[in-house]
């Protein structure tokens, strides 16, 4: 299944090529045009079959999902043959300790090894190390050897493999569900037909500030946009009296407002109606958390009415995340229903 390949593909922000290639192979026969822009966004057009609904202009819909994942970049090798690095996107040392990584397109294996507990002072145990205190061990013993194997600037990702955990929710685990899950949904949606021009943007560098989406939207000039994401699913027991941000198994999550965008209420209503018409479960994401490509898209040119639909995913931005295939499939169904019903409500926009 494509989610497995997408999850295991190597694509930290700034180096999305392997993911782009994979997606291009998967969709090129389903679309009428594809192009890659200056930043590396993959923009594809699926021309509408039949006329779009009437109104001021023909309907031009943009769907976006970002190809990049959080990762690391080698900064230098030290005299002992260990590699030091920076993080790419939102990663902290908290989730890097004792993790295997792969470096470069050749996926050179390495491990981020922490100091053994036996040798730590009490004060060390109470703090998190800084990323600059960590190093990747590839089994090299000299600076020259390490530099040759992974020169400055080499990208890296976690080495997590995809697997099915099963159960009623058909949960799966893997890295980079943020946002390969969104990419998987978008690839699926491109397999269907729509009565309007559908532009799909597989964007780059979302994790560095929604950068690919901004230029892709400028190029496409959509009238309406949906960002497809994987979003924080925090159901772990906590002390505060607050409902979870989203819950696994409760269906696609519709964003009302996050830190980057206040979603267009008309589109939210439309999504809800589309869900209820087909009996598709859905939930609302707790407001105020996170940011997505819609944050950039909705402010392009004179503005674009935008919404965000996400697959709930636990432990995003760490080495291994978890989601339910039932939720993923319902996300595809919800979007399909919403898109097919879009022309009718479009005239009111």
């Amino acid at each position: 299944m494509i989610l497995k390949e997408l999850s295991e593909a190597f694509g930290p922000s700034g180096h999305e090529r392997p993911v782009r290639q994979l997606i291009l192979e998967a969709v090129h026969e389903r679309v009428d045009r594809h192009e890659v822009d200056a930043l590396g966004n993959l923009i594809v057009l699926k021309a509408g079959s039949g006329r779009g609904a009437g109104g001021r202009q023909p309907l031009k819909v943009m769907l976006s999902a970002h190809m990049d994942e959080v990762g690391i970049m080698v900064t230098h090798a030290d005299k002992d043959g260990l590699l030091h690095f920076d993080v790419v996107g939102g990663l902290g040392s908290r989730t890097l300790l004792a993790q295997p990584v792969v470096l470069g397109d050749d996926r050179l294996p390495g491990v981020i090894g922490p100091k053994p507990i036996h040798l730590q002072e009490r004060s060390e145990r109470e703090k998190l190390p800084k990323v600059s205190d960590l190093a990747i061990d590839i089994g090299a013993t000299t600076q020259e050897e390490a530099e040759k194997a992974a020169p400055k600037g080499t990208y890296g990702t976690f080495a997590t493999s995809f697997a099915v955990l099963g159960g009623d929710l058909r949960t799966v685990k893997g890295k980079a569900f943020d946002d390969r899950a969104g990419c998987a949904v978008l690839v699926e949606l491109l397999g269907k037909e729509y009565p309007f021009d559908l532009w799909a943007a597989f964007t780059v560098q979302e994790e560095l500030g929604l950068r690919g989406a901004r230029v892709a939207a400028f190029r496409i000039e959509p009238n309406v946009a949906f960002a497809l994401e994987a979003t924080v699913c925090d159901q772990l027991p906590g002390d505060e009296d607050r409902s979870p941000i989203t819950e696994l198994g409760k269906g696609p999550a519709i964003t009302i407002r996050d830190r980057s965008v206040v979603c267009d209420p008309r589109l939210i209503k439309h999504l809800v109606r589309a869900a209820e018409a087909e009996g598709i479960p859905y939930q609302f994401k707790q407001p105020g958390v996170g940011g997505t490509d819609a944050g950039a898209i909705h402010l392009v040119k004179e503005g674009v009415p935008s919404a965000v639909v996400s697959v709930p995913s636990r432990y995003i931005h760490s080495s291994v995340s978890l989601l339910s295939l039932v939720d993923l499939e319902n996300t595809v169904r919800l979007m399909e229903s919403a898109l097919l019903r879009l022309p009718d409500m479009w005239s009111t926009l």
Partner: protein
Amino acid sequence: MEVVSFLRDLSEAAGVSGYEEFMRELVIGQFGQFADEVRTDKLGNVIALKRGDTQGPGPCIMLAGHMDEIGLMVTQLKEAFLHFTTVGGIDPRVLLGQEVVVHGRRDLPGMIGARPAHVLSQAEREKPLPVDKLFIDVGLPREELERLVRVGDVVTIYRRFIELRNGWVAGKGFDDRAAVAAIAFCLSELRRMRHQWSVYAVATVQEEVGLRGAITSTYQIMPQVGIAIDVGFGLTPGQPEGESIKMDKGPAIGFGPNIHPKVHEALVKAAEALEIPHQIEPVSGPSGTDAWAMQVTREGIPTGLISIPLRYMHTSVETVVIRDIERTGRLLAGFINRLDETFERALCEQPRVGEAM
């Protein structure tokens, strides 16, 4: 004997202290190829005997490496997640984001997670999360979880063996399965050599929770010499040099109160004679290994300690050099090959009145 594949099998198998069944099968399968007899004892130690040339009852040496690993145990089902405690010394900072297997009614793959960073206060974000703020998630709803998991179920870290460069490998449980592999290598080398003393190769249990397997196995065997093979802190930048041994420079031969000086001397002599790269490891107090228990069994046992250099101890990415494991096995075989009556007498040598201090 292929060290890499045996180490891979040992490392990937689940065997937390007290729950070493799968380890036993693997070890019996491997030791059995080189030994005359293999049995297990009441605690689950695997004891293999390779007889020496001495006719009838004679001196014997015991080699011990522990096959248990540190792990976790379920303490509570909370909603659809599991609270847990550690078995053996684990740094909670290295648990977040690790994949695990919960050994419930069936083996359930899962991961260790926590609340996302943005729900924590700024102060909390800079500190590591203690074990009680971590949860195991196997991706099942509560009803299914209840049917499959209960308090007390053992949890192991899931880590596939990783081959790095230059014969360096990384994985979980190399403490102390690297030693079990070294012992197997020693037994395979002994098939090409003569040795007078009999050899008891023991894969001990429950070392991580108090050297327990070593206590009972040494008692049964009553060896003339006992050597514990464990892992030592491989030198890594940022680690005190005084507490470390060098990677890829061969086994470290321990010296200190836990080690009989004549055993130390004989090990060093064997290494030098056979030109096996080796180092000396000063151990000023308890060695934290089976040697500490072996030494005070019955009326006392002359003990030795060999440490295999290992980085990132007690994490899921422990790293060793395969060459160091082979050198350790070869050193042990060479040492055993040289054991004779002279050495036996030297161990029991009594001081004479009037001799110089």
